[in-house]
Every structure is written in structure tokens, then in C-alpha cells.
């Protein structure tokens, strides 16, 4: 177990290092000057040069990268133009929004978490539930209804579903306020009512995959010998289906869920844009558009951290579900 964690920590560090190097290189490979977006049209060449100097953009790439990494590990002094001393983990200073990147992240990360986590719980319950029901009621109208529902979900786009939901529940029925983010700890009711449409839209689209996957898995498991054994023991249906069949059918669902949730936590750009909520995803896209390197680096690294964490979590869950899996 501890060996597993050490190995995981090591490979995670390596992954994050590679991601940061690639992001850095790709940023400078872009045929654009990041400084032009800071002082727009009325910039003369001398001013541009001075800004470039201030930001350290004239230093060699290696030392810029080393400076950035040093900031994360030990903190660094960014100079008075960029907020002065920046404590570890220092994610730098955004020359677009004029604030410490860590402040930006602290503002937008809870938004994305608030969108993704409840949505994921919803889509897992809905997807696995639908898949179970349609597998157990195979060939009935319930099965067809569930398949139809998941086909619809799989073929629609979020911006369409989102727009329909907004139109119906916000603008026509006026049941819900215009989506916005309020902290869960300030006002839970407002938090939920402002985000519920995003949850529903995401859950609808994602649950489609889970319904189909868990239906197929469940059907396969139901024909397994150990399910027949469970029935031969005289177990009642709920125990046969729940304790014996579902536990074996759920393993692949856990994998997909880990990848999906890990990916979604890195930012749900389309959802955030559709509902006009500023989360990690939109922040990342804005940063790319503005050429805001520190913010790009921070959002990309955070997304990578989530993917790495999700993968480790999937492995842990696998070992918890299947005793044949040994963590090494």
C-alpha cells in the first residue's frame, strides 16, 4: 500500500513536470507576443521593451521556467509591479487581470468543484440506475425507454440542452434564477438553485454513457455462474442483483467515472460558458485568448493534478472492489 502510494507520487510528479514543460514550450512557440495584449494599441516599442524586461520575458526560456518552478516550490519575489513577494506555492502574477494567479484560482476552483461534484453524483446514480433497470427488465417498454433516454442524451450537445433548460426553467416558467455561483457556505439554497441546471444538463449527457455501459455490464454479469450460484443458495432478488451482480458489473463503470470526473474537474468550459458561470474552464480559455502565461500554466497544472488524482483513486477503488487486484 505505502509502496503503491510512493510509486504513484513519483509518477505524478513526473507527469506534472512533463505537462509544465510542454505547456511552457507551447506557449512560447505560439506566433504571438504576450506583451501586446497587456499594453494594447498605444504602445511604443520602448514601453513594450520595458514591460518585457519587467516580466522577465527577455530572459532565456530555461531561466524563466526555473523561476516559475522555484516560485511553486519556495515562493519568489516578483517585483513591485507584480505584487512583490509571492509565497509558495507561487503561481505567478497575471499581467492581464493584474492579480496573483493563486487568487484567481481560489476564486474559480470552488465554482468548478460545485458544478462537477454534484453533477457527477447525479449522473452516476442516474446512469447506473437506468442501466440496472433496463438490464433487469430487458426487452420491456422500460428497457426501451431507458435506451431511448440514453440515446437522446448521447446524441445531444450541452449548449443545446443547456439553452433549452434555461429557456424553460428560467425565462418561461421562472422557476429558477439566472444561473450564478454563490458559495455553498454562504447560502446553500442559493448555491443549489444557481447551479442546478448545470448539474441536470451535465448529468443528462453523461448518464447516457453510464446507462449503456452498466446495462451491458449487468447483462453480462447476470449470465455468470456465480449469479446462478447466488440464486441456487436461495437468495432473494435484491441480494442476487445488488450484492452479487452489481458489485461485479460496476468495475468498468468505476474506471470510466474516474476518467470523466478527473477530466471534468479540470474545467467544464462549455457548461460554464452556456450558463455564464466563471469556473476553471472559462478562466483557462480566457487566459489562452489573452496570452496570460501564468494563468495558463496554473489552470493546465491543476487540470493535470485532477487527472492524476482521479487515476490513483480509480486504482484504489479497484483494489477495494476486487480482492484479486493487488496494489503495487
Amino acid at each position, binding site marked *: 500500500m505505502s509502496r503503491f502510494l510512493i510509486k504513484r507520487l513519483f509518477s505524478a510528479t513526473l507527469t506534472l513536470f512533463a505537462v509544465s514543460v510542454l505547456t511552457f514550450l507551447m506557449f512560447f512557440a505560439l506566433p504571438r507576443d504576450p506583451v501586446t495584449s497587456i499594453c494594447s494599441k498605444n504602445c511604443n516599442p520602448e514601453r513594450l521593451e520595458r514591460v518585457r524586461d519587467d516580466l522577465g520575458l527577455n530572459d532565456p526560456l530555461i531561466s524563466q521556467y526555473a523561476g516559475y518552478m522555484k516560485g511553486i516550490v519556495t515562493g519568489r519575489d516578483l517585483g513591485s509591479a507584480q505584487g512583490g513577494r509571492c509565497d509558495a506555492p507561487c503561481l505567478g502574477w497575471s499581467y492581464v487581470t493584474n492579480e496573483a494567479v493563486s487568487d484567481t484560482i481560489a476564486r474559480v476552483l470552488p465554482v468548478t468543484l460545485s458544478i462537477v461534484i454534484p453533477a457527477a453524483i447525479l449522473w452516476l446514480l442516474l446512469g447506473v440506475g437506468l442501466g440496472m433497470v433496463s438490464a433487469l427488465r430487458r426487452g420491456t417498454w422500460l428497457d426501451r425507454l431507458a435506451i431511448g433516454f440514453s440515446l437522446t442524451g448521447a446524441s445531444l450537445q450541452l449548449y443545446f440542452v443547456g439553452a433549452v433548460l434555461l429557456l424553460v426553467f428560467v425565462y418561461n416558467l421562472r422557476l429558477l434564477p439566472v444561473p450564478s455561483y454563490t458559495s455553498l457556505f454562504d447560502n446553500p439554497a442559493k448555491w443549489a438553485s444557481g447551479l442546478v441546471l448545470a448539474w441536470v444538463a451535465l448529468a443528462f449527457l453523461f448518464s447516457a454513457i453510464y446507462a449503456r455501459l452498466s446495462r451491458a455490464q449487468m447483462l453480462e454479469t447476470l449470465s*455468470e455462474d456465480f449469479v446462478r*450460484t447466488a*440464486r*441456487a*443458495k*436461495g*437468495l432473494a432478488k435484491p441480494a442476487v442483483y445488488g450484492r452479487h451482480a452489481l*458489485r461485479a458489473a460496476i468495475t468498468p463503470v468505476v474506471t470510466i467515472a474516474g476518467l470523466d470526473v478527473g477530466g471534468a474537474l479540470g474545467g467544464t468550459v462549455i457548461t460554464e460558458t452556456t450558463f455564464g458561470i466563471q469556473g476553471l474552464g472559462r478562466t483557462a480559455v480566457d487566459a489562452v485568448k489573452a496570452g496570460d502565461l501564468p494563468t495558463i500554466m496554473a489552470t493546465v497544472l491543476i487540470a493535470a493534478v485532477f487527472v492524476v488524482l482521479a487515476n490513483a483513486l480509480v486504482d484504489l477503488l479497484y483494489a477495494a472492489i476486487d480482492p484479486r487486484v493487488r496494489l503495487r
Partner: protein
Amino acid sequence: MDSSDAYLRVRDLRVRFDTSDGVVRAVDGVSFAVERGRTLGIVGESGSGKSVTSLAILGLHDAKRATITGEISVGGRQLVGLPDEEVRRLRGRDMAMIFQDPLSALHPYYSIGRQIAEAYRVHHPEASRREARQRAVDMLDRVGIPQPARRFDQYPHEFSGGMRQRAMIAMSLVNDPALLIADEPTTALDVTVQAQILDLLADLQAEFHSAIILITHDLGVVGQVADEVLVMYGGRAVEQGGVEQVLRSPQHPYTWGLLSSVPSLHGDADADLVPIPGNPPSLINLPTGCAFHPRCRYDDRVGDRSRTEVPELRAAGADGHLVACHLSAEERAAIYAENVASVGVAR
């Protein structure tokens, strides 16, 4: 064989599946009975209906797909037509089953002990966890698993094949059932382990006094443990009777074929094994008349009857010995003496 105090009595059992390719008559009019303390061996190739019969007794067929008619009486209760919930209460308590491959029949994610304790607690809801655990450990000990308390917490993949089948037997006997159905319990095991498992079953039968149905394709196994034999072909009984009668004076050409394809230690070591020509029939497209006729070496001796008429089960010699064959008793005796017994297969 048809004694009135039999624990299990099956009469004219028919199991039919309606598939998109047509109707499959997997079991077509089979009757037998087993008393407590006795063992019935059901013999046949795959697709002969032997497993379908055992699953029908336990009520494990999907009611939506299978149509079951006839009588299945277990301990005096008529099971055909009984609501599934009532059959469920009997499953695992009054009648239990051992499956062919214990690795796939045990749940890979639950410990052996937990699966046995679960089987106990379904039918003893008043039992505490500790009692169920103790009961499971006792059963593991009883079936010859060393260090049962420690092995309780191990998973099926941590057991060897033979130990897994022992655990499976422990699970099926945990509620002391009066009827035990063993569906090819030794097929997936090493030869050396097979004999141990058969011995164990015989010991346990002596102790628990249960009726056992042993399903197998191995006549050697039948000779070792069964009291009565039922030979099935194409969903029907072609020969049945006491084990001595059926193995010493087999009457049906199919039984002869089965015996001739078993190597014998006592016979001539140079004697050729004679396989039965052809393949088992498809149940969806069973040959007309006698289902065995396309593979029967003597089918020309009865003319068209083998194609047009299904042979009835009729008394053959000693009491309770039945055979379904168009050949007359004299013809069978002549063929047997001349062609079959000489191959050195009669036990």
C-alpha cells in the same frame, strides 16, 4: 426406483424453450425418483438435457423463457407451478446444488467464508453473524479444508481447484439439505482430486443421509458412486435402472457406445476404444423417430420404425431396468454378446 417414499420424484418432466429459431425441447418426458441416502447418476453428452433437468428441479430456469410441465415433488411438495418465492425458500435449504467449475461458480469478490455464511443466514435469519461464521468454519472443517478459521477469510482465487470444490460442497451442505444435485462436480478438477471429491461426497451422504443426483458424462464415476443410473439422449431417457443392471447388462446401443468409449483397466490393454460415430443431435432439430438412429450401428435392423416412431421406455429384464429401443430383447442380447462384450468394456 419408483418407491413411494422417495424424497425427490420427477414424473414426465418436460422443459421447453421458445427461441427465435424454434422450439427447443430440452427435456421431453423424463421420470425418476431418488430416496434419501441414495444416489442417482444422470449420464449423457452435452445437450442431452441432464443439466436442464437439474436446473428445473431447483427452479432456476427463467420463467419467461422456459415452459416446464410435469411433476417435480421434493419432500412431498409439488414444485411445478409453485410461485418462485416459495421455491426460493426451498433452494439452498431443502435442495442444494454443486456446480461444475467452482472458480466461476463462486463470487470472485467475496471471501469463501462469507459466501458460505451468507448461504446459512438466508435460511436462518435469526442467526447472528458470529453463529453463521462458526457454522461456516465448521463446514469448511467438515469438508476437509485445513485451518478452516484462517481460510474463512480467503478469496476463491487463493484456493486450489480441489479446495474450491470442497468449499462449494461446504456451501451447498451448510443448511443440511435432503437433496443435493452435483452437476459434473469433478470435471474441472485434476484426476487425483476427482477421487477425493467423490469420496468426500460419499462420506457426507452417509453422514447427512441426503438424496444425491450426480450429473456426469463419465460412466466410471457413475459405477463408483451411483445406486441408480439414468442415461439421457436428446432430452429423453434412453435407459435407466439400477447401476449393476445398467453397467453389467446395458441394453441401449447408446449406453454400449458410452461404455465402449471408456478405457478399462481390467480389460485388454490393446482393445481399441470405440467412439460413438457422429455428434450429439441439435435439440432444435432433433432426428425424427428414435433420436439416436443417425448414430446407431444397428438402426438398419428395425427398418423405417427408427425414423417414424419414438421408442417407448419398456421393461428390460430385471425389475426397474428400462430401455427405449426398437430392437427386441433377443436381438439386443445377441448383438451385445457378439459385438460389445467382446471389446472388453463390460465392467
